[in-house]
């Protein structure tokens, strides 16, 4: 009797933990979708907030998040890819390289709120950029940098030495071999990493708290040197700081759902690139 039941219990323990994890995911999705969907409408994503945020849409927050993510990409992608190229293609194993690698690992573990403080000290105050879209985008760019470097270097490392040698052997310089052969081959892997990193940046709130985000800006397509609205911060404010919290709850649910959709779409893009690439191999 025991011999038959024990394996079931043992197996059941593992299945139970897996079930719990699935349960969390289902609750998150179910709650956000079932309560957020009724708020979604063309008006919700295409108009300005009205009546002290109790009515209207979230267009400025959507535009803000999109622009912010683009600035993040403009900062972290060239910078990160360049650093990864240095580490994987040029650097020799010496104390300098080891210091750079240790710095990257440490940066990837620094809490996001500390990036917020750094952005405040460096961009907002130090470089006199004020609380603005640029300051916030630069801050998120620094936050994303280590992830871009790590994923790019992984993609570069998968390229065999013989690919580089093929270009060198026909008289290409090292830079030409990287530009013409290594990078095109590594591109799908790099893109996957970059898009995943940006999806994380799009959902970040803590780093932009003090660097430029605002609750309400009546200029929907604000300028780079001005404060801006963003989806994650909008959700935070609607759910904790609004005077009529219960009244704006549907709007909060709608905002949460839009944010999740934006992030998941970016993730799906990354998975698609990875999937398509793995099929081509």
């Amino acid at each position: 009797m025991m011999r038959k039941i024990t394996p079931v219990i043992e197996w059941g323990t593992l299945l139970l933990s897996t079930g719990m994890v699935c349960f969390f995911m289902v609750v998150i999705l179910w709650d956000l979708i079932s309560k957020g969907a009724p708020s979604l409408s063309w008006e919700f994503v295409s108009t300005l907030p009205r009546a002290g945020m109790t009515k209207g849409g979230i267009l400025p927050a959507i535009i803000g998040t999109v622009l912010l993510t683009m600035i993040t990409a403009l900062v972290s992608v060239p910078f990160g890819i360049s650093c990864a190229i240095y580490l994987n293609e040029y650097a020799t194993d010496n104390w300098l390289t080891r210091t750079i690698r240790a710095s990257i690992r440490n940066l990837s573990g620094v809490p996001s709120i500390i990036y917020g403080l750094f952005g405040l000290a460096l961009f907002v105050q130090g470089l006199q950029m004020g609380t603005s879209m640029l300051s916030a985008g630069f801050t998120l760019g620094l936050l994303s940098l280590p992830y871009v470097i790590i994923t790019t270097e992984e993609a570069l490392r998968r390229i065999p030495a013989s690919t580089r040698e093929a270009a060198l052997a026909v008289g290409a310089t090292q830079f030409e071999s990287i530009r013409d052969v290594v990078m095109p081959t590594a591109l799908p892997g790099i893109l996957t990493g970059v898009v995943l990193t940006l999806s994380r940046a799009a959902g970040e709130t803590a780093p932009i708290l003090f660097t430029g985000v605002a609750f309400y800006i009546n200029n929907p397509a604000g300028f780079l040197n001005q404060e801006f609205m963003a989806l994650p911060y909008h959700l935070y404010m609607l759910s904790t700081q609004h005077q009529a919290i219960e009244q704006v709850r549907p709007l909060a649910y709608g905002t949460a759902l839009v944010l999740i959709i934006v992030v998941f779409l970016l993730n799906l893009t990354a998975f698609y690139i990875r999937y398509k690439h793995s099929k081509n191999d």
Partner: protein
Amino acid sequence: MKLGVRESIDKSIKLVVKTTGLLVIAILGGIFFMLLWNTIAFFLKIHPLDFITGTQWNPSGDPEVYGILPLLVSTCLVTLGAMVIAIPLGIGTAAYLSEYASMRVKSVLKPMIEMLAAVPSVAIGFLGIVVLGPGIADIIGLSNGLNAMNGAILLAVMALPTIITVTDDALHGVPGTYREASYGVGASKWQTLIKVTIPAAGPGIMAAVMLGVGRAIGETMTVLMATGNAAAFPKGFFHSVRTITATIAIEMGEVPYQTTHYYSLFAIAAVLFLITLGVNLTGEYFVNKFRKYHSA
């Protein structure tokens, strides 16, 4: 293009990419310097010992009091709670994925776990306010559920994908010969898992746990939204707490520049930085140990 030109381009590019490598060091150095500079400014006004041992955080009181202990204990409390939940669940799920699950189950579960990792922390915090908090309040019979338990469960959900993925990798890293040897002496699948595979993957699992701890300690939005943020010394899991991260997030927006209060927020950030640094270095130690162990 002339050969000379091509070769000077090659040389300049090498210089450019090297500069970006150096800039990475400069960024970490900049963060470190910023924290140190402002912390020193803070310690010129408040004695370090009062800061470290103070049991009250009340910067707007009269007199101003800057004791980090309530914040530190809050941070530790929610992190501890999160790990008590996330470690067994994470290891259990990873063990199921790597040892039991069929390819079809895996092809559903793995993307789902990646999706869970992608949910922004502010959305998790929101669900803490509207779903989990009220749920806890109902069960325990409190007026509201914004407390350490709420934060701990949410942080566990956020740390789970990291713990599962890294543990799964560690279990996969255990050579198949170990398991075969165990089956060879008549051990069951479960005995093999508990007595052979998990211990062999031990350092890798420790690294996974450390990554999860690092993520939980440094998380801001979830705890800011879900734990109530009472500044008093934490009394337990079912009381409101206020972590280091939440304190920075709440107070930095309101303080005038270069006041003691302003400096104090950098000082608690420096403490947070040192803790996460310690956690990450410990994790790295285990990663290296795991690598050495299995490459030998």
